[in-house]
């Protein structure tokens, strides 16, 4: 080893590093979403015939099987499948690659809540230019609405999460409880259960932004509206207050368990009846079946309780689709893959892995709807879940910086949860943090 020669090489690398580092920070391009382009699918079909190589980032359980099936069907296309992390890890890496200007995949899984953020920072391709707007009627209105940002189409929906009430029938039967139809009944059930057995809770909630926004959504709230640079935030609108009025009772009376969601303790608690119900998205059965074996035969599904007990309404919780990144060298081929995934033969392997679709045809097929689920004691759970898919309150939108918003939920609303006090002051603090951040990022943010 010759240290002098080595050091010269490293010195050159260093000089390059400094030069590029210094130039990199002057090139900030704050792009915005283009407003709705149209075109035809010819370019996509041509790209598919020509073939090539693309990279796909996703953490969904079905991704691997889908990529394999796609490559069998189109041997001239090579898809490099990468699991870059779950949830925030995935978005952080995607964000870093976008910021760095290289290293992003051609296609990425992006959840509905995160989509506006990537669309509005100019990271995603408007699929309208490939004529994909023609697929609108294939999807449920709420999922289609979720991939549209400012008139552009920034992905195709893969799954959806219309909310329903999952409950532990064994616990309910043991304590003579009936399935609540309204949220008032739900609170009453919570009291009865916890009084009868202090180790049991109606549900667990330590403050989760995704859950809170979904509950506000179901209550008819529309806290976030975006129009170009203008953002309006009102986390104390009628819907939000309707939800907190109910949920405050549970939080203040300590009727919800404080086991954090998705922890090992949480899985344990789902299996042994400590947590008696879950108000969550239609993708939950897959999780219960594969990861809570102790709950087999005990769980059942009912429609989500409502406020008036008459009109069935629900909201989406979770779910997302696939988008094409602007960094892609082969956007048309990438779009072809997205089309295959969510509007072609890719849907079947997705359903086989226990996914809950966003496509109307699959939701309405009797084979899907009438399937008896052994885990749920033979209940035809998809009857309940597909019905919910049609009862989602229309007109919801997430913030253009929802990932940031979710990250500071614990700092603000989390305090209310920790102190077992009303969520309203927490929501107000959350709103303030979001207004400040939006204004710093160049939005003009107003409040209700």
């Amino acid at each position: 080893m010759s240290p002098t020669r080595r050091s010269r090489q490293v010195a050159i690398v260093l000089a390059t590093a400094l030069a590029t580092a210094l130039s990199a920070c002057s090139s900030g391009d704050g792009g915005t979403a283009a407003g709705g382009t149209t075109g035809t699918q010819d370019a996509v079909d041509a790209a598919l015939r020509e073939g090539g190589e693309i990279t796909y980032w996703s953490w969904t359980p079905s991704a691997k099987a889908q990529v394999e099936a796609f490559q069998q069907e189109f041997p001239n296309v090579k898809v490099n499948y990468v699991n870059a992390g779950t949830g925030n890890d995935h978005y952080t890496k995607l964000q870093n690659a976008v910021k760095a200007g290289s290293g992003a995949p051609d296609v990425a899984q992006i959840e509905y809540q995160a989509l506006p953020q990537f669309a509005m920072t100019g990271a995603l391709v408007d699929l309208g230019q490939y004529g994909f707007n023609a697929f609108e009627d294939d999807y449920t209105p709420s999922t289609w609405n979720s991939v549209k940002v400012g008139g552009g189409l920034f992905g195709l929906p893969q799954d959806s999460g219309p909310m329903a009430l999952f409950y532990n029938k064994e616990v309910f039967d043991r304590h003579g409880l009936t399935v609540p139809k309204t949220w008032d009944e739900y609170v009453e059930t919570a009291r009865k259960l916890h009084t009868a057995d202090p180790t049991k809770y109606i549900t667990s909630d330590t403050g989760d932004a995704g859950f809170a926004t979904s509950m506000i959504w179901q209550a008819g709230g529309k806290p976030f509206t975006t129009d170009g640079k203008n953002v309006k935030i009102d986390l104390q609108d009628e819907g939000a207050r309707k939800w907190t009025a109910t949920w405050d009772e549970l939080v203040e009376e300590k009727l919800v368990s404080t086991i954090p969601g998705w922890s090992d303790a949480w899985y344990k608690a789902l299996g042994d009846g400590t947590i008696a119900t879950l108000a969550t998205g239609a993708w939950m059965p897959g999780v219960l079946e594969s990861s809570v074996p102790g709950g087999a035969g005990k769980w059942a599904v009912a429609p989500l309780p409502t406020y008036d007990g008459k009109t069935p309404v629900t909201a989406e919780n979770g779910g997302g689709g696939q988008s094409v990144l602007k960094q892609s060298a082969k956007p048309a081929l990438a779009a072809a893959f997205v089309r295959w995934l969510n509007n072609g033969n890719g849907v079947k392997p997705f359903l086989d892995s226990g996914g809950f679709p966003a496509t109307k045809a699959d939701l309405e097929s009797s084979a899907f709807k009438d399937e008896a689920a052994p885990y749920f004691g033979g209940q035809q759970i998809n009857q309940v879940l597909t019905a919910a898919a049609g009862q989602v309150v229309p007109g919801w939108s997430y913030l253009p910086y929802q990932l940031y918003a979710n990250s500071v939920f614990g700092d603000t609303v989390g305090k209310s949860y920790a102190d077992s006090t009303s969520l309203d002051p927490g929501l107000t603090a959350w709103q303030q943090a979001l207004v400040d951040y939006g204004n710093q990022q160049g939005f003009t943010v107003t409040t209700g």
Partner: protein
Amino acid sequence: MTSISAPVRSAPAPPARTARRSRVDRRGWLFVAPFLVVFALVFLAPIAYALWLSLFREQVFFGGTEFVGLDNYAAVLGDAKFWESFFRVLLFLVVQVPVMLGSALVAALAIDSARLHAAGLFRIVIFLPYAVPAVVATLMWGFIYGDTFGLAADLNELLGRKVVEPLSGDWVLVSIGNVVTWEFVGYNMLILYSALKVVPHDLYEAAAIDGAGTLRTIVSVKLPAIRGALVIATIFSIIGSFQLFNEPNILRALAPNAISTFYTPNMYAYNLSFSGQQYNYSATVAIVMGVITAVIAYVVQLRGSRKGV
């Protein structure tokens, strides 16, 4: 520069009086340069880049980048979140570092005293946690801390009521301190023990002839002899406390309401970058924190070397 090497003067082998020959010998660079070049690439260049970044403000969505001079620094100094996180790690430092170093010192003295059965076993077992990655250690303690199913729950059951709630707001800083202590007592013990081992034994003999008891020998012979090692251990523990990140960040999944996104300065800087895409402000927080850390480390060095010299 003299102050930098000052504490080392009391260490067993001080670099300050290393080169006895007086002529300047440039051949030394031959050996030092390769290290310095890589050091410049992975330490100095990012610091320089961070300094540069701290002078700008970029709006990720609209508006691009503008030069703002020292505005970011003014904002950090007036940022309540920053100071909250700073005072939290300061409190952590004031409590945890003495506990950790005190335990390490007691362990080192005990092992060195030759009054311990199976001293070699103690030495290696107490050191073991150092070989456990922080990620693994925190995941492990996280399971144990669970007050529904973890060992904390078993303990509560034993006591008859919910006494310990390691992941609640009142406890969580203590819980983090416990993880850090568990990880690093053995390491610090080893450093102090190594320093004790080279204390010349004629010093002990002299103390024994003077009729000094165990405690007096420790206070008047052993502690002064290992002051250099103590100062170094303290400085690095201070730096470690100010940079606290892995443990609270991983425990956050289990205590989302007790550990905020700005729980420590380092977490604040991290979340500014990775959740908020506020790279410029994040860089400023990092630099301010680095300067504070360096100043405090420097003061400790000065005091540590002056005492009793």
